[in-house]
């Protein structure tokens, strides 16, 4: 029982962390150009200003 008192909040906290991370990513436009994100990894960045 005492382990549960610890573990349930920990599990919920970690879950909530993931949820919050997802919502943040959604809000900051990470999902707006999924095709572009897949292709951009192929671009060489030789100048730092990019």
């Amino acid at each position, binding site marked *: 029982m005492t382990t549960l008192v610890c573990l349930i909040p920990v599990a*919920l906290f970690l879950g909530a962390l993931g*949820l919050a991370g997802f*919502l943040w990513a*959604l*809000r900051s436009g990470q999902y707006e*150009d999924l095709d*572009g994100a897949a292709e951009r990894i192929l671009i060489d960045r030789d100048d730092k200003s990019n």
Partner: protein
Amino acid sequence: MSCCAPGAEMALDVSSTTSVLPSSEEIRLASRSLGDDLRQTDLSVPTVHCAACIQTIETALGKLERVEGARVNLSTKRVSVRWRGDEVPPFVAAIGRLGYQAHLFAPEADAKDRTLSELIRAVAVAGFAAGNIMLLSVSVWSGAEGATRDLFHWVSALIAIPALAFAGGIFFRSAWNALRHGRMNMDVPIAVGVSLAYAMSLYETINHGDHAYFDASVSLLFFLLIGRTLDHVMRERARTAVKGLSQLAARGAMVLRSDGARDYLPVGDIEPGMLLLIAAGERIPVDGKIVQGASDLDCSLVSGESTPKTVASGERVQAGTLNLTGSLTIEATAAAKDSFLAEMVRLMEAAEGGRAHYRRIADRVSTLYAPVVHLTAFVTFLGWMAATGDWHRAITIAIAVLIITCPCALGLAVPIVQVVAARRLFENGIMVKNGSALERLATIDTAVFDKTGTLTLGQPRLVNASSIDPATLAIAADMAAHSRHPFSKAIAGFASPGGQQKFDAVAEYPGFGIEAADAGAIWRLGRRGWAGWKARTGGEGKHGYGGTVLTKDGIIVATFDFEDALRADARAAVERLNDVGVSVQMLSGDTAGACAEVSKILGVGDFVACLLPSGKVECIETLAKDGHKVLMVGDGLNDTPALSAAHVSIAPATAADIGRNAADFVFLRESLLAVPLALDVSRKAGRLIRQNIAIAIVYNAVAVPIAILGHVTPLIAAIAMSASSLLVIGNALRLQGFGPHAPARSTAADRRASFGALARSS
């Protein structure tokens, strides 16, 4: 005004250098201010498709002066450019130099898709809650007792609150909306089931009961939200793809003031009496009268006529026609809101209503389903009350009946099939606007085609090239390259590679043809009466398509015959439609002769020629009155009212903007086989939807008696509901592999082809 779908420009892309770039006034009108002197312009660039494109465009634009930054969005095929200063940096030209075509489109203040992000957030919250509650429920099912079980139930109840409030809100609002208007939809039983399940579970938890349905109510929301989100994504994708086609519309025109000043005014500010300057290649923004100049007008989008019309001063011109060869000064005779285009919108709105009566299968099922389910639960309650007199037990069992019948499978039965069908069509270059279009298409028995631009490409094709001396043809082709007249473009396609004839001077005479001087000889390509001034002019009317000739010093050296090129696979498409029991007709605004020829080649049984836009609507309404379900396929402005009058409608990507918006389906590739394919997929989808509904009903027939007898536990409910949902989803996926002519999957080449089609049509 937005009627600038590609007319003649798309013939052969020889005109990339001559096509008119949007003027900086137009760009300024279409950009929006980000404050602090910073402005943003969104451009649609349909041909970007890989990392190299992104890098090329972003680097090139970043180097321009006063450009703060450029960002390519590959998913929507757009480039947003942020710039500052008074003068517009030449970014459209810069993109053009890289080999991409960029178009402006209307700035939207609210560009982000609010509904989608709300749905995704709801899915995330519901998924989080469902996962955690299921974890606790599994512990309860595997034997947690007493205080531990109560603790788990309390934690579940807490987690469920945000899920119900946030994710469930979507269903509660929709159900409330339906009830308030005296309607019934699938969300009503969902909302009732979910909230009652939660209330009962809370009551059980407070009283240390052993059965709580928190997991059922939240995972139900999770599953249904996934279906709903997929449905929304499908429609949104079609919408952006269709919007990406929007051509640079005539959003303004150069106005010549009485004091000689020139102002660029938006279309809405143009008043009757103003003098407008229309350069070659521009669309005429409002109805007017030509004051000065002569030119050829491409009326194919407006009237369906395939041959360009020669106009001279004093004649009236209609809004939406494309000025091909000479510059014109016109006097506006109507404001934009009274012009031809606005008239089409009015006709379209009047014609709409036929499809407003259509009720979606899901709604029809739910009007039957919800009362039956609620009545069953109520009768169960009464039965148990009469049998045992234990009201707590009676209510518990009645609510268990509601939970087990909660239409999870039924809620997914329709959208999941439509999402798979839309995906399948998307891979083949066909956009579906919404699910009800698929349902309506499955029921049609008559297909009505427009001629110009639909069955034919609306571009002339040179038919007697083989009988013309190659050297002569090469000379004609070199001359023709200087003009954007559709006939010229057809001839220019035959230019001999490399061997460019050098002319001393080339001049275009709008309405007549092209004149070129070369080593003392004068060549003319154009109208017989003008070019062959020394020849006897007797055979004028004999050449059906106007009679275009090439002359040297007034002596005819070659005659060119044209015909309207048929759309690829038009005949096969008509045959295939006939094979599946759909009768095909043709309605056209073109002459009877031109129609008879096309209908003979294609084997179209019936046609009506010389129709006005309202005539097309009447034809379709007559068919509908005779009990036919009519599919309209058309592209022109003149087809738009007919597109919305028909039971369901399809437009090619080359159609006028307003036509694309009115149509339920838009196909991006040239082949007309898209029409039978869409019909085929929609009929199969209709079959699968009926199967899915049957599965859901069978599931209920098995599960409901168990629930009524009081044997349902939360574990049984969870298993039964997931099993029925999985079955329905699995059945829907069968659509992917259906059919003998199942076309290739979405391979890279395939996708490129569809981009190519987008590019060509833009």
